[in-house]
């Protein structure tokens, strides 16, 4: 049997690049627009509780402090070091007091009265399995250092 030779390959076999480049640019554009650099303070280890009426607020809080709490009830704050709010309340109190002091200075510069609490919002991202007592103690410590605004973070039901 003889195999027919169909179209012997021409000398300059040019691969058509256009569709591939089109697709690649589409992909790059997609990944570029979905890229977000924000939310660096969020801790991936925390599994947030689910609540369907927790609505994301449209306006960003005034210079927020993020407090991440693990499932054991440990607080991961500014430096990333873990502290137990029950056994090691002094560490957390010290850090929060520094934050409150800074906020008070900023408020004085801005000419805002700070007697009824600082303007900073404390965003609490506690794990759903964290003991309630630990979360409450953190709120209590923050309250005693002068914070009045709190946000309890939760995820929308999926």
């Amino acid at each position, binding site marked *: 049997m003889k195999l027919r030779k169909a179209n012997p390959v021409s000398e300059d076999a040019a691969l058509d690049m256009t569709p591939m*480049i089109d697709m690649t640019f589409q992909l*790059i554009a997609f990944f570029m627009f979905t890229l977000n650099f924000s939310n660096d303070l969020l801790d991936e280890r925390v599994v947030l509780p689910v609540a369907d009426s*927790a609505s994301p607020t449209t306006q960003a809080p005034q210079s927020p402090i993020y407090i991440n709490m693990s499932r054991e009830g440990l607080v991961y704050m500014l430096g990333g070091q873990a502290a137990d709010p029950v056994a090691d309340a002094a560490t957390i109190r010290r850090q929060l007091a520094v934050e409150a002091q800074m906020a008070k200075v900023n408020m004085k510069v801005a000419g805002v009265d700070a007697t009824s609490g600082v303007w900073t919002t404390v965003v609490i991202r506690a794990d*759903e399995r964290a003991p*309630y007592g630990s979360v409450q103690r953190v*709120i209590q410590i923050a309250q005693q250092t002068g914070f009045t605004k*709190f*946000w309890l*973070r939760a*995820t929308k039901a999926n």
Partner: protein
Amino acid sequence: MKIRKTGAGESKVSLEMTPMIDVVFQLLIFFMFTFKIVTVEGEFAITMPAAEQGSAAPTSENITALPDIQVQLLAGENGDLAGIQVGDTNVKSMDELAATLKAIVGDDPQMAGDVEMKIIAPDNLKYGNVVATINAAARVKIQKIKFTPPGG
């Protein structure tokens, strides 16, 4: 003046694609690896009065006419929710809690905004249950939620 024609007669101009495709793939890979699906996070905004040492919690006289709702959560050994009580009545689930709260505050948003709900929960209870309780209250538009101090 005469303009010199360079490369005259060459009919095919081939664009060098390789460097562009290299760079494009680099970009693609960078964006792919930094890709992260972020779930939408909502929040419950709560305002706590600044605590003053030695003084009791502030009470205002004119809202005492409204009956306060007291929700007590009970925890099992491992911190799981063991029971919910609204006042003295037992409630089985968070949905039933929302229905019970709805029955108390009714459809009036003014009433729901004025009524005060107190959450009592033991220390070892898992925090997710407390958020679920706040969620149930938020569903019926209760806005004043009080927490008991820790140590319960």
